[in-house]
């Protein structure tokens, strides 16, 4: 491409940025509808007090790796009161940071995935600390920051977190299941570049595969419970299916991801995506002779595959077979 791209990019962006005056006015009018703000005390003061107490507690136990807590320990009522529940992390010394934006980084925060108790490999979601900072919404407390990131990662548990380690500047939220750590979320308020704001922001997230989370802790519809013939839950990198997003009107469409190459199959009852699949969806077909019973099933479907891989077949609860065609390439909703 020739070198005059920059002026053309500026032209393109100016064109894309053009909005109607009516839109500006409509947004400006929305200020009138902002809710009344309740007067409340800043939460940073009690947090600082709690943090100061916790620092003392943590430093006292930071000489070595802490003892793993037993599986039946009940999470404390207040997440921020659980500093001594930090089993595998040392609240150790910090190291000089390579990045001027988040510093100094505690050693424990730099490899949170290493401290998970996953049954299989950790999932690909999230990142260690230091990480490429995303524009996650900050909060005034670590709990606020946690809640903000949960709206970004729908497949993370909604509930069940405890703040396992909190110092003045760092917090670690852990999702524990039967005493095993399945999610670690690290937040900090160490942002020297943005001194004008009190903010805690999630900077590290590592999690086990969502199939290791308690279904009751997940948002409804965030994960389909696929199981093998023996009734064992299947990892999402083996099989995963989700309904399409509402903002594309695809709520009745199901996108199935299968196998390590994440082949995508589509239940397309409205036949809206036929151009994207190698054949059409059929709600009532005969099961091919060469079909293989995978044993994979949910409460709605039981899956069969065929050697060509051009479709999968689902036996429904009423005994019919549906043909879900393979997508020509993985697609999503714009």
């Amino acid at each position, binding site marked *: 491409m020739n070198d005059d791209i920059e002026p053309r990019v500026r032209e393109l962006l100016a064109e894309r940025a053009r909005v109607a005056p009516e839109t500006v006015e409509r*947004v400006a009018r929305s*200020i009138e509808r*902002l809710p009344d703000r309740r007067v409340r005390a800043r939460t940073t003061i009690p947090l600082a007090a709690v943090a100061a107490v916790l620092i003392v507690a943590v430093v006292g136990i930071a000489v070595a790796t802490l003892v793993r807590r037993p599986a039946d320990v009940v999470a404390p009522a207040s997440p921020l009161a659980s500093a001594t529940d930090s089993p595998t992390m040392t609240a150790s010394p910090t190291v000089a940071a390579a990045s001027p934006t988040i510093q100094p980084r505690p050693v424990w925060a730099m490899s949170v995935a290493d401290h998970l108790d996953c049954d299989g490999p950790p999932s690909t979601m999230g990142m260690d600390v230091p990480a490429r900072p995303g524009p996650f919404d900050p909060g005034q407390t670590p709990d606020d920051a946690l809640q903000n990131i949960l709206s970004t990662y729908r497949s993370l548990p909604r509930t069940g977190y405890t703040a396992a380690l909190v110092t003045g500047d760092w917090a670690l939220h852990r999702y524990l299941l039967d005493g095993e750590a399945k999610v670690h979320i690290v937040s900090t308020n160490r942002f020297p570049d943005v001194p*004008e704001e009190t903010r805690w922001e999630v900077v590290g997230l590592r999690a086990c595969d969502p199939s290791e989370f308690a279904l009751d802790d997940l948002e409804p519809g965030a994960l389909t419970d696929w199981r093998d013939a023996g009734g064992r839950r299947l990892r999402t990198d083996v099989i995963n299916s989700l309904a399409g997003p509402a903002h594309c009107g695809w709520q009745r469409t199901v996108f199935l991801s299968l196998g390590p190459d994440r082949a995508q199959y589509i239940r397309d009852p409205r036949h809206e995506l036929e151009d994207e699949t190698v054949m059409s969806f059929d709600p009532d077909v005969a099961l091919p002779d060469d079909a293989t019973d995978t044993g994979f099933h949910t409460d709605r479907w039981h899956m069969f595959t065929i050697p060509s891989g051009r479709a999968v077949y689902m036996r429904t609860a009423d005994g019919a077979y549906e043909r879900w065609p393979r997508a020509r390439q993985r697609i999503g909703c714009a």
Partner: protein
Amino acid sequence: MKSEPIRIMDPPVGMEVALDASSRLQPLVDAAVAGDRDAFRTLVEPSLPRALGVAAILTRSESDAADAVQDALLSAWLGLRSLRDADAFPAWFRRHVVRAAMRVAKRRGRVVALDLDQPDDPAALDRAMARRTLGRAFDRLGPDDRLLLALHHYLGLRVAETAGLLGIPQGTVKSRVHAAMDRLRAAYDAEERR
């Protein structure tokens, strides 16, 4: 305090361009913290066209951009108490806008091809084709790349401002803008081969 009129086609010099001297922001921020919507309006209104522009670039939809900026207004209104430095309000509000727009942008995935009006003039057609190709190439970029290019080439933020906005080092901003431009060039080449 009198606010500037809304302008749609301001030059890309940053959303805070129309704000008055920063020494006058503290009383406005104080009033807004106390619940004065008019004070809040005075603070944000000059920034709205630019805010909507950035959001429109990131979300590729005017209606989504309006939703994002309204979300940003709400979060800024509710979070105003956390603002330590009134002078930093413009950059602080811009951060809310970028976050809200990125939330929308990251919910969107598939590239949507834009229809091309067919002009009669062959030269105009060539230009339109090139513009369409560049637009399609830009749409192939991820939200993070689109954000960096919008901040750099639309808002015209300095590297230090972008670094402050995103909370990353200045050197990282430079390398990411460079990488985003490389990806845009590669995407353009790929679009031309289609």
